């Protein structure tokens, strides 16, 4: 009990002598506001001195728009007055005169029609009621003057009016008010008559430090009570993962590529030997941008890409069709970051070899949005340009990359991509789930890609992990919509990844 007394805060000590009174009386006796008294009682409840009871009352109150309408008339009244002054005018004329927003205007017409005050005939608004009827006060107008009101005191008619107003935007809202009462516990009763006014130090102040402390004690703090939270600033969790991904590439000696998200089909498809009638180039899969037509790069490069498609280069047969410049000028949101690689290769000088590049960045697909579909993704990818590189090196790099990500066991198998040959797919061993997970796509760029871009058939090793797949797993996210929902509570609570 002594310990308990020495941990009482000032407000608790102020309240304790009045525990036989009501909250309102305590407020008068202690000159504390209601919030402070309730806080003191909550502290005392923590110490098992009182027990609190809460009753929740539902109260109808004005919303943001409601407050405004209370002062400036409801939209239906404004509309009615306007029609009274300008009968039989077109919708547009009335709307402009009434100065209402689209939503307000639509709602107001609905209300007045339901009240049989106006009618809409061939695009014109007409009064259908007498002046007297029009000047009658609407129940909605009465009720917004009377609010706030507890719901359980309202008549059926009032409730219906409230219900109607609630269906419109921010006029009325239902708020919950809590009514608090308390009783003193057995333990609390023991406190009666005891001296609680000990000479305790409440706070350390500059003066106190100066004076020094002799033979006095500090009030004990109770850390078991619920304290208000604080929230720090933080990186968005997707970007935390992007940083982590980038770090791996940087440590492996790769240089970052950057570039536009919107590119000509030329860089995204044609330079990567994707034939112009390939299904991925259709609107169902790719976001093309309406009315925007790009320019093609250097004519020699364009001619070389055209040749690669039509008749082939470096001994290839090509796709044997007529390649169209127009098709390659269509601008799109990049479907993969490989368009950065194609651009990088076209700008590379021989003196820079061997070279390694990477990017971890956004790509887009024309998709619906649901728990497993999204139209924006992150993609990671790296390329190694080295005259002496080979397929076994590619597997070596992949193994090293996977090990950096924390996966020691990897398995590879044949795969297919239009712009690489040979191609492979790598799976990593998920120890938790005891299964292979396909996350790595890789290959060596085809000569039909490298000859136009580099001028020679040099091996370019390329690979990328399924970035979002690894990220959602790391953050334990099941619904892809969570990634860009930006629920501030979620962002505040989401744990920082330490990897």
């Amino acid at each position: 009990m002594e310990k308990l007394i020495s941990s009482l805060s000032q407000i608790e000590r102020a309240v304790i002598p009045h525990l036989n009174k009501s909250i309102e009386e305590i407020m008068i006796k202690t000159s504390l506001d209601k919030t402070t008294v309730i806080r003191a009682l909550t502290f005392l409840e923590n110490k098992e001195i009182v027990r609190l009871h809460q009753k929740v009352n539902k109260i109808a109150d004005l919303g943001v728009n409601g407050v405004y309408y209370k002062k400036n008339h409801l939209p239906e009244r404004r509309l009615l007055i306007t029609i009274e002054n300008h009968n039989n005018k077109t919708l547009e004329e009335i709307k402009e005169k009434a100065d209402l927003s689209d939503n307000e205007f639509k709602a107001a017409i609905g209300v007045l029609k339901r009240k049989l005050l106006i009618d809409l005939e061939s695009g014109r608004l007409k009064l259908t009621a007498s002046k007297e009827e029009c000047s009658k006060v609407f129940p909605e107008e009465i009720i917004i003057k009377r609010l706030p009101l507890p719901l359980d005191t309202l008549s059926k008619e009032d409730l219906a009016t409230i219900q109607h107003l609630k269906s419109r935007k921010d006029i009325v809202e239902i708020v919950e008010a809590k009514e608090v009462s308390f009783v003193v516990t057995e333990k609390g009763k023991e406190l009666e008559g005891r001296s609680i006014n000990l000479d305790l130090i409440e706070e350390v102040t500059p003066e106190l430090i100066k004076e020094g402390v002799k033979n006095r004690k500090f009030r004990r703090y109770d850390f078991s009570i619920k304290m208000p939270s604080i929230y720090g600033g933080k990186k968005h969790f997707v970007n935390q993962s992007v940083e982590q991904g980038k770090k791996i590439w940087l440590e492996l000696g790769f240089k970052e590529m950057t570039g536009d998200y919107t590119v000509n089909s030329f860089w995204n498809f044609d330079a990567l030997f994707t034939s112009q009638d390939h299904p991925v180039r259709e609107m169902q899969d790719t976001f093309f941008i309406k009315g925007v037509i790009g320019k093609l790069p250097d004519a020699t490069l364009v001619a070389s890409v055209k040749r690669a498609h039509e008749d082939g280069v470096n001994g290839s047969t090509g796709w044997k069709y007529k390649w169209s410049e127009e098709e390659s000028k269509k601008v799109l949101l990049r479907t993969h970051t490989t368009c950065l690689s194609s651009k990088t290769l076209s700008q590379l000088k021989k003196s820079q070899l061997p070279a390694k590049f990477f990017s971890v960045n956004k790509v887009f697909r024309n998709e619906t949005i649901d728990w497993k579909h999204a139209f924006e993704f992150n993609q990671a990818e790296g390329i190694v340009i080295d005259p002496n590189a080979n397929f076994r090196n590619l597997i070596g790099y992949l193994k090293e990359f996977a090990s950096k990500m924390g996966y020691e066991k990897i398995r590879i198998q044949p795969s297919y991509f239009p712009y690489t040959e040979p191609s492979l797919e790598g799976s990593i061993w998920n120890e938790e789930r005891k299964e292979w997970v396909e996350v790595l796509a890789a290959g060596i760029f085809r000569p039909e890609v490298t000859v136009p871009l580099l001028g020679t058939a040099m091996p370019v090793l390329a690979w990328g992990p399924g970035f979002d797949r690894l990220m959602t797993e790391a953050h334990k996210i099941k619904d892809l919509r969570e990634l860009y929902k930006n629920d501030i509570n979620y962002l505040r609570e989401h744990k920082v990844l330490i990897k």
Partner: protein
Amino acid sequence: MTNIIFSKSEFEKHLKITPEIQERITLFGTPLESINQETIEIEVFPNRPDLISLEGFMRSFKKFLGKDIGLKKYAVKKPEKDYNVIVDKSVSEIRPYISCAIIKKITINEERLKDIINLQEKLAITLGRNRKKVAIGIYPVDRIIFPITYTAKEPKEIRYQPLGSNSELSAPDILLMHPTGRKYENLLKGYNKYPILIDSSKKIISMPPIINSETTGKVEVKTKELFVECTGTDKNTVEKTLILLATSLAEMGGEICQVGVIGKEKSATPNLAPQKTKISLQNANKLLGLNLTETQISGLLAKMGHNYKNGAAEVAPYRVDILHEVDLIEDIAIAYGYNNLTPEIPNISTPGQESKESIIKRKLSEILIGMNMLEISTYHLVKQEEVENHNIKDSLELLDSKNEYKYLRQNLLTSTLRILSENKDVEYPQKLFEIGRVFNKNTQKENGIEENDNLILSIAPANATEIKKHLDYLFKMLNISYSIKELTKPGLIEGRTCAIIIDGKSIGYFGEMHPNTLRSQGIQMPVAIAEISLEEIYDSFNQK
């Protein structure tokens, strides 16, 4: 990518499915997706349509396992007397190419009929690009009187009973009423003549790429001889598709018989001569990092169905994926076994290097996080009503977006206000920032669009002074001095909004959101905003 489901019992007539076989299926380049009591499902990549049918798959997979290795040769009979298709020049504008074959002595049961139709459909979807590039027709030979004419007629003149219908219809009615007609009518839209195949008795046997005739173009269980035709817009793909189909039917026991195609030139299809592709031993070893002898390479190519001789491979005509020696080199790697390739990391050292932009963005967010700001990350696309509400001009619309986000964003404010509105009930203060890409039209650029990285700060509740204090600190930390100039901007309060100026150039603004704007967004707290373009900041660091 297509997933193919085979019946397990049919599969096991060729090979017993052991754990080892399962692993070999994946290592062959057809990932095993699932397996149960009745079925086995594999993935076939789009470059290998020859693996779609069970017979086609077995033809190659058995060689991979070492059985019956080397090039598969098919016996082909020359065209018999009347087995000709005469190509009229009227088709040249619409579907100029045709390739045909006759398959004899084939036994068709229920199961096989389903397989053939399945193969025909899969080929028309993939290689045929939904019948646009190639469409396929299969007919019983005994209902047709040869020779056939491939010609184009005005739609009104075309009348026949399409497959699945019980009466004759005109071509326009077929496109309007027949389910297959409705599905593919876009392929004939805009042409004043439609292609048809007519036999010697003037009976229309089909209207490619739409549908066969019910009377002459219906294959049934008892059919013994098939007429197969592929029509399309790409000569090479038309020929290849016919070859794929004819050789698959031959694998089912049929005999391939050529058909004469007589147009400007005269030819006999299908041409099943193997294709020769050069392959150098040195290139193969260099690309794979191996040290194989010529004999080894020859043996590995044989396991993939190719014959090797003197620096070239004879490739089976159904292998449509061999464009270059690298395709053969991949085949060598597959035959060698991806699991047998030992990884090797070359000893070359290159320094890692983060881009300037990334470094600056990272530092900016560190400073902002130090000011207790929370980073948000929003979509690069915005909704139609947002573009309208914010009165955005020169908007960049996407073609046929499948979701409610239909425009590229031109600033970050639009998405930030959306997030504030969606979080209006979350505990305040809310101090948010985002660094993200914005898009604006610019015909000077290669892609017709100017892209910028922008930074937005938003604090609620706060006034303009509060946000300016944050900017002051931010720019001080970046060692950049800025000046301000009053600005009128829709949505913000006049007299509390300023342009942010660096080196005489306006790079953005800060200010207090107008209460009416906040109200229209359903936001109930005062909001102060700053949005700046980072391009000048990138530049100022590039100069340093």
